[in-house]
């Protein structure tokens, strides 16, 4: 689907907000993603997966961090340029049980999908939640809600977001989590300990995004390989073989 870029601006250090014309052809569940073709020719070859950070009548929003060649090239695109999206893909966050204490826990660029999730929780589910987000430094912060931790202490809680959220978690918590693997892993061990529920969004290198290449698998506790693109990217943390990540 060739769609027009409406906006592509740096909103925090190395973090960009990309807004794309919404063709109004589909709905999106928070946690779902698009496979984005960076150029109109075969370089870089593979599409890049990006979560939906906002989904409004007039635009689809993606927030991305420049980490390699593809995102670098993406950051040079201008409003009016066209970009090719495949999706929405994957299983988003689901099963919001109203009697649970909902916690959103995100780290770095993994916070992007929570912007859309917040919207859905507030407007569709009309449910309350608490949000805890971790960044390395103040200048990487690109959101305007939730409690913030920074590793260098330049803003909010000094330290890791897991340290910040730890005391909030009890066996009635339902956590939605997304961020670096190391953070998710610590959260998972914490959840086992506190016996709570958690849905985690995982990342993995993808070629197809539609379940056919079997390139994006992660190991699950039943000794199986599951595809992040179609069996995830959101998983029940209890299914994941965390020791293999």
């Amino acid at each position: 689907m060739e769609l027009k870029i409406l906006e592509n601006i740096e909103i925090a250090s190395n973090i960009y907000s990309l807004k794309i014309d919404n063709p109004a052809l589909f709905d999106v569940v928070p946690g779902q993603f698009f496979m984005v073709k960076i150029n109109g020719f075969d370089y870089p070859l593979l599409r890049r997966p990006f979560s939906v950070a906002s989904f409004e009548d007039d635009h689809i929003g993606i927030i991305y961090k420049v980490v390699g060649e593809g995102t670098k090239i993406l950051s040079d695109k201008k409003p009016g340029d066209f970009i090719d999206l495949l999706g929405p893909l994957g299983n988003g966050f689901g099963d919001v049980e109203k009697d649970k204490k909902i916690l959103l826990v995100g780290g770095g660029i993994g916070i992007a999908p929570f912007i859309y999730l917040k919207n859905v929780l507030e407007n569709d589910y009309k449910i309350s939640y608490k949000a805890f987000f971790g960044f390395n430094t103040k200048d990487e912060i690109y959101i305007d809600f939730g409690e913030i931790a920074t590793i260098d202490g330049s803003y909010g809680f000094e330290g890791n977001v897991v340290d910040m959220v730890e005391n909030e978690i009890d066996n009635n918590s339902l956590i939605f989590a997304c961020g670096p693997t190391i953070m998710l892993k610590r959260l998972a061990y914490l959840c086992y300990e506190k016996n709570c529920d958690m849905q985690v969004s995982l990342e993995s290198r993808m070629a197809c995004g539609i379940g056919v290449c079997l390139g994006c698998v992660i190991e699950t506790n039943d000794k199986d390989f599951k595809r992040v693109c179609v069996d995830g990217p959101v998983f029940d943390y209890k299914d994941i073989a965390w020791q293999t990540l």
Partner: protein
Amino acid sequence: MANSVNMSVKLSNIIFKNPILAASGTFGYGFEYQKYLDLNMLGGFIVKGLSVKEKKGNKPPRIVETPCGMLNAIGLQNVGVDRFVNEKLPEIKDLNTHIIANIYGSKEAEFVEIAEKLDLEKAVSAIEVNVSCPNVSKGGALFGKNPDSVFNLTKLIKSSTKKPVIVKLTPNVEDISLIAEAAESAGADAVSLINTITGMVIDIKAKKPFLANKTGGLSGPAIYPVGVRMVYEVYEKINIPIIGVGGIYNSDVAIQYIMAGASLIEIGTANFINPDITVKIIKGMREFLSRENIQSVSDIVGAAHSM
């Protein structure tokens, strides 16, 4: 106008409505693509490689991007022939296109067992024998690098099934036409080439190979000149049809393969980038043929040899 071009090709007793097939391992079991294109428009598609038993495949990471290409080391994760027949085939068997099964075994008897089981399935049009998978420790490309084992294996499989047998060759050899000749003399109905070229990417931060399997198979646009060259070489040595595969990403490259000597072609990695690339390539080929006043695609098979 473009529709007056004759795109059909024959391989053994099968007539394909056009020479475009989707390559094994890049098209799932077919139905995953139903959302993106009408499968009936394809000449056919080749399902993910099947083994006797379900296979888990290699540990991740399994893929990594390279310049105009990618490495994969999936390790033939698949549901096994029985579940394929019982669970997957029913979903696709009524399609008006050819389903080709790609099979893999770690020893001859396994190949034979799968071939015998598939021989009973009317919905399977042909069998493609993968003797060239670089990503599994046993069997795989080891078979495919030795003309004698290819000869023996092909003979065995031919006697286990009445369906046309296509032998898929590895490019990781010195002279691919020797292997093609071995397949031909053993009675293969066709050969397909090339499978992926073995490669490696190193994670310089971690100071180790990026893929858990260390090496992987290089596919994608980067490799097409190698595939075209090999098809050209094999065409001069054998008389059975050649199926060209490797890096095809547009109709121009597809036509290069055909002029090099391929009767049919397979599209692999390009399906990942554009799920409907197969039908775009069919359209592009039709347009080319009609623009050049070529009546039938079979008129240009091997055309690059005539000079």
